[in-house]
């Protein structure tokens, strides 16, 4: 499939073993297009490594390396240092991993990379839980989502905590470019990835992607669901460039689609829409509006 305006070259080839409708496969395909040929990819353990490299086969037409779950960013540091010594300053190092690798187990290493100012772009393919091991909650799982380790039940509404704010944790490190993007808006995500990769220093893109078995969505609705995440304001797409916020969309808190429209397409939130859980739904709706309002306020104040 050719997407208008995006390079036609494919570096993540067909024949990999991802689920039908896999949002993360779309995300990595897009990031390779943004990166281009002169790139070294560093992946963490997770679905993407499993579905794309069953030895002796591979889906990667770019140099690709995987070490462990939590050390992709540190491997990236080493690759970047080696390239510097080899005088290959033009070669990009793009490190990617899921939200488990990024928000939880690999976070210390990522902090080290951003503190030192290593020259890498880190892309989190964020599908909001440990999908490869069977849909367990992570620090990126949103409040109320039912996972296998935060199931809803008589005494539980699903995950009890709000999603960790990785964007602002990394913003506090002083990164020159951070963005949240969504596979619901591919050309926009492409532009954000490209900007991140063209900005020297440690840069970050949190790329939200639907997971069919994890979110319990219709494989045909992968893009629709991701789009609704943006339109309802649950996962707004925005940038923090040298500390200053720019919200791409949505831009009006009062014109947001209600969160139910996003939640109702996903089995993981089914219980939240039951009448007895109306308080939780209202809480989520309120928080979504407040979060977006805060981002827009930062932007308007030049922060």
């Amino acid at each position, binding site marked *: 499939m050719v997407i208008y305006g995006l390079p036609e070259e494919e570096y993540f080839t067909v024949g990999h073993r991802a689920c039908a409708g896999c949002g993360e496969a779309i995300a990595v395909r897009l990031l390779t297009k943004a990166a281009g040929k002169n790139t070294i990819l560093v992946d963490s353990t997770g679905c993407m490594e499993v579905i794309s490299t069953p030895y002796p086969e591979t889906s990667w037409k770019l140099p*690709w390396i995987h070490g*462990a779950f939590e050390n992709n960013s540190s491997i990236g540091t*080493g690759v970047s*240092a080696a390239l510097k010594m080899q005088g290959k300053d033009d070669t990009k190092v793009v490190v990617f991993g899921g939200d488990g690798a990024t928000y939880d187990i690999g976070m210390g290493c990522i902090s080290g990379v951003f503190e030192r100012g290593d020259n890498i772009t880190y892309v989190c393919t964020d599908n909001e839980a440990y999908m490869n091991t069977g849909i367990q909650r992570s620090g990126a799982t949103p409040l109320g989502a039912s996972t296998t380790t935060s199931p809803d039940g008589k005494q539980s509404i699903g995950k009890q905590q709000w999603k960790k704010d990785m964007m602002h944790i990394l913003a506090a490190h002083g990164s020159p470019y951070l963005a949240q993007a969504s596979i619901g808006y591919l050309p926009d995500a492409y532009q954000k990835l490209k900007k991140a990769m063209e900005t020297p220093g440690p840069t970050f893109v949190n790329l939200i992607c639907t997971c069919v078995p994890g979110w319990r969505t219709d494989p045909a609705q992968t893009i629709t669901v991701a789009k609704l995440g943006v339109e309802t304001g649950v996962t707004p797409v925005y940038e923090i460039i040298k500390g200053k916020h720019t919200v791409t969309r949505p831009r009006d808190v009062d014109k947001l689609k209600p969160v139910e429209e996003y939640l109702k397409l996903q089995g993981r939130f089914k219980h939240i829409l039951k009448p007895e859980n109306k308080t939780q739904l209202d809480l989520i709706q309120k928080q979504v509006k407040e979060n977006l309002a805060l981002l827009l306020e930062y932007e308007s104040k030049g922060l």
Partner: protein
Amino acid sequence: MKEIAEASHAISEAVKMAKPAVIAAYPITPQTHIVERLSEMVANGEFKTEYINSDSEFAAISSCLGSSAAGVRSYTATSSQGLALMNEILYIVSGMRLPICMTVANRALSAPINIWNDHQDTMSVRDCGWIQMFAETAQECFDLTLMQFKISEDKRVLTPSMVCIDGFTLTHVYEPLHVPKQEAVDDFLPGYTPQHAVLDPDYPMTLGAIGFPSHYMEIRYTQNKAILDSLNVIKEVYQDFSKRFPVEIKNTRPEEYNHVERYRTDDAETILISLGSVCGTIKDVVDELRAKGEKVGLLKLITYRPFPKESIVKTLKNAKNVAVVEKAFSPGLGGVLYNEVATLLYENQLKPKMRDFIVGLGGKDVTLNHIREIVKNTKEDKGPVEQWMF
């Protein structure tokens, strides 16, 4: 050039002369003098390398994984808890056949927390698929560090290596050291040309793929074969090095490096086996007892992994009494080295009287009297098989 140097600085000097393009490290006592000196050298422009101030030992070894895979000579150093924190990645590095070189300043493992010397740290990673070599003196620290690069990077080997040096009793001790000229080192260890797949956009390769049951065991088999076969390469490098760099300062290293150093073992009835700096103390007692006519000798292991079975059997063949003197144990089993040596002797139908002595844990002094008692108990078949020398 002859000088008096701290063993840690001997290592730093050797690393500088080996010219790694990337060094990634995290400070931990008693490894610090090595990386501090390296940082100083980089700061003063004494050599060009990318020095990564890692945020943990785990990150340090991971960055070496990345730089080595990108095709450059890579080095790190650690100790004890730091080595334990690296554990997961140690297996990955050797499985990916990346020739990373590391120094381990041997130190006890917690708990109780203890910064002093023993060998529990490196013995606990003996199964990680790394080559392990133990040094007794500052000169050996220097020499083995240069040699480890040559060994690990050999295309027949492609296996990471660690040179193990005793924390404090060696890292912080000043000894005579001979440093050869850079040109001679360059001849011995030329600039790095990777012999493995590297990350290169012009020739994209997939490194670190998933191995299903159809391939995993086969890949592990080849890895095991490589480390077993490396015994020959290591010997080759020992011989080459010994010839190129003859002894300049007496008694600071063996005349000719070998997997084991045989100290007065030829006609010995009682042979002690040990590793590292305690061998110096043992040699003193061997000399003392020899002067009294006792047929005692020392088998010092320099190569520990791969386990130099032939060299050990050859040395112990005629021994009546064998004592393993070691600074590590497997709780619930006993001495690590003892169990390995006992298995080896059984395989070769040798049945000397054997004793296992656990010494020097957490920096406890190992005295001449300890060694005298060890010899006595072994010769006289006295006390239990496993004895802790407090």
